[in-house]
C-alpha cells in the first residue's frame, strides 16, 4: 500500500500535510509521533473514515476508492468499546458470522488474546486491558491482508504488552501487513520493521532503524534519540 500526498485541514490547522509513505507486504510499519501528531487522523484517512482534502491511497499501484478500502484493510480504532451493552461472546460471534469464521478459529483467537475469563461479561464492564484484548480479537477475526491498529498496546501493563507482542509476532505478522500507530517508542522498537516519524501532521523521517539513524546523524542512538533529532 502506498499513501501519496495526503492533506487534511481542520479549519486553519493542518492535521496532515503532504503525508506520503509506503508499506510493503508482510511488513510491520510503526507510525511514531507524540500525542496530537496526526497519527489517528492519518490512519482514519487511509481507512476512508475521515474525509481528506487531497491525496490518494494506492493498493498494488492502483488508486483505491473509499468504498474499495474495506476490501483490503481493516482499521482498529483506539479508545472505543463497541456494542458496550452486549456480552463479549456476542460481539465475537457477530464478527465471526460476518467473516464466516469457524468456531474453532474463534476459540483459537479467544485463547490467544486471553479473553476466556470475560466472555460472559458485558463489554461495558470490561477493564481497559480486556477491552483492548477484545479489539485485538476482532483484529484477528478480520481477514484483511492489511491491519491498521491505533495504539494497540495502550491499556496493557509491561507484562501484558510483551504477551501481546508475542501474539502479534505469532499470529499477525506471518499473515498480514501491519500499520501500527504507537506513541511508546520502546514498544515500537520491539515490534516494527520500519517507522514513519510524524509530528504536526508532517512526515519527518521514514525507514528502518538503521536508515533513520543515518538520517538523524546518530549512528548508535535508539529510536528515542533518533526521533528527538528528526522531530
Amino acid at each position, binding site marked *: 500500500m502506498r499513501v501519496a500526498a495526503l492533506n487534511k485541514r481542520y479549519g486553519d490547522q493542518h492535521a496532515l500535510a503532504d503525508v506520503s509513505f509506503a508499506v510493503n507486504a508482510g511488513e510491520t510499519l510503526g507510525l511514531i509521533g507524540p500525542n496530537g501528531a496526526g497519527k489517528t487522523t492519518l490512519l482514519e484517512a487511509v481507512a476512508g473514515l475521515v474525509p481528506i482534502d487531497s491525496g490518494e491511497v494506492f493498493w498494488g499501484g492502483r488508486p483505491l476508492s473509499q468504498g474499495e478500502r474495506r476490501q483490503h484493510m481493516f482499521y482498529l480504532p483506539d479508545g472505543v468499546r463497541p456494542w458496550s451493552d452486549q456480552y463479549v461472546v456476542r460481539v465475537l460471534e457477530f464478527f465471526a458470522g460476518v467473516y464466516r469464521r469457524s468456531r474453532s478459529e474463534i476459540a483459537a483467537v479467544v485463547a490467544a488474546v486471553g479473553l476466556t475469563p470475560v466472555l460472559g461479561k458485558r463489554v461495558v464492564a470490561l477493564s481497559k486491558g480486556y477491552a483492548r484484548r477484545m479489539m485485538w480479537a476482532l483484529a484477528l477475526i478480520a481477514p484483511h491482508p492489511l491491519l491498521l491498529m491505533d495504539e494497540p498496546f495502550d491499556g496493557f501493563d509491561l507484562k501484558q504488552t510483551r504477551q501481546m507482542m508475542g501474539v502479534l509476532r*505469532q499470529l499477525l505478522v506471518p499473515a498480514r501487513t501491519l500499520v501500527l500507530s504507537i506513541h511508546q517508542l520502546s514498544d515500537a522498537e520491539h515490534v516494527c520493521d520500519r517507522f514513519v516519524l510524524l509530528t504536526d501532521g508532517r512526515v519527518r523521517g521514514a525507514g528502518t532503524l538503521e536508515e533513520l539513524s543515518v538520517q538523524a546523524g546518530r549512528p548508535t542512538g535508539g529510536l528515542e534519540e533518533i526521533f528527538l533529532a528528526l522531530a
Partner: protein
Amino acid sequence: MRSPETTVISPAPFLPLLVKELREVVSGRALWIMILILCPLAGYSFFQAVSLYSEASAAVQQSPVLATGLSPLDGILVPTFGSFYVAVTLLFPFVAIRVLGREKESGALRLLIQLPYAIPTLIATKLLAVMAAWSLAFVPVVSSVSIWMMLGGHLHAPETLNLIFGHALYGLLVGTIAIFAASIAEGAATAAIITLTFTIGSWVLDFTAAGRPGFLDWLSRLSLTQTLRPFEQGLLSAGLMIGMVTVVAGFAALAGIWLPPGVSLRRKLLWSLCCVAATAAILAVVAQARWSIDVTEDRRNSFPLADERALPHLAAPLVITVRLAPEDPRYVDLRRNVLSKLERSLSDLTIRLAGAQQSVIGKAGDDAYGEVEYVYAGRAATSRSTSHREILPLLYGLAGMALPPPVPGDDYAGYPLVANADAMLLWFFGALPLLIAIAWWWSRRPPPVNHLTIVTEIKNEVTQAN
C-alpha cells in the same frame, strides 16, 4: 496455533447483522421503559373507551335506532390506539435513535462501516430492528384488542387491520426520521431534539395551521399526525400509502448519505439536496393518486350501495364550485359527506374552491357565500346543502337519471355492547407490567450456552495441539 487466514472479502451474510441489531435494540432500557409506560396508558384508554361505549350501548336499549352509531372502530379501537400514537410520537424516537446513536457515541460505527455490508443494507437492517421494537411496544395494545374480543366485543377485520397498518406506517415514519436524525447529529440528545421537532412540530402545525386558508393549509398537510387520520376513518388510500413509503425511503436515503464518516460535508449536502428533490417530485406525482378503499363495516366513506352503483354512469365531466372558506365548518361537512365520496366514485370530477382566499368573517355579507354550484353536461344547479341526500338527487337530475332504488340489506346495524372492564385494570396495571419486566430480565441474561461452546472448542483445540 495457526494464524487466522486472510481471505478475499466477500459480501457478508445478512443474518449476523440482523441478529446483532435485534440484540442491540432489545438490550436498551428505553424500549422496555416505553412498554412499561404503555401498559397503564393503553390500559386506561381502553378502560375509558369500554366504559363510554357501554354507557352509549345502555342508552341504545331504549332507542335501538341509535345503535347504528355504535362502531367499535370509533368507540374502542381509535381511542385505545390513540394512547399508542402518543407513546410513538413522544417516546419511540428515543428507542429508534439508540439503534444508531449508541454506535456513533461508542465508536462502534467506525467498525460497522468497515464491514462488508452496503450502506442501504445497514440502514434497512436498522429499520427492521426499529420495527421489531415497535412490534414489542404494540403488545399492550394487542392485549387491549384481545380483551375486547374476550368481553364479547365485535371487530371488523379489514378496518382493524387497516388501523394497525396505519400505525405501523406511522411508527416506521417516526423510526426513520429518528435514524436520520441520529445519522446527522453527534449525540443522542441532539438527535432526539431533531426528531421531536418533527413529531411535536406536527402537533403544532395541526393546532395552528389546519383549516386555515392558503399556504397555512398546505403547510398543515405536512403534519405527520394527518397521516393517521384516513386510517382512523377506515380509508386505505393508495396516495397516502405510497406517499408515506416515499417519505420513509427519502429519510432512509438521507440517513444513508450522512452515515459514512469519510464523505465530505459538501458532497453530503449535494446528495441530500438531490434526495430531497427526488422525494418531493415523487410526492407531487403521488398526491394526484385518488384510489382508495373504504374498509369500514358501516361504509362511512361511501355513498349508499345503490348510489355507488349508479354514480359511475355519470360519464361526463362534473365541475363543482364551492363558495366557502376552507375553515368554514360547512365546507368541512361538505368535504366529508359529499366531495370526498364523489372523488372516490367519479372518474372525471373537478372541485374549485372559490372561497379559498376568503375567510368566514370577511365574506359573511356576501349573498353568494355558502353556495355550491354543480355543472354537468352543460347544465348547472346550485345548492347550499352539505348532505348527500340532497346533492345526489340534484346530480341525477342534471344527468337526467332516475333515482336508483335502495339496495336491501345495506344498513349498518351497529354493535352495542354493555361490558365491564374494571377487572382488566389489574391486568394493565399489574400483571402485564410484571410479565414485561420478566421479559426484560430474561433478555438481559448472559449467554451461557455459547460461552460454554467456545470454552469447549478451546479445550478441543488444546487437545488437538497436544
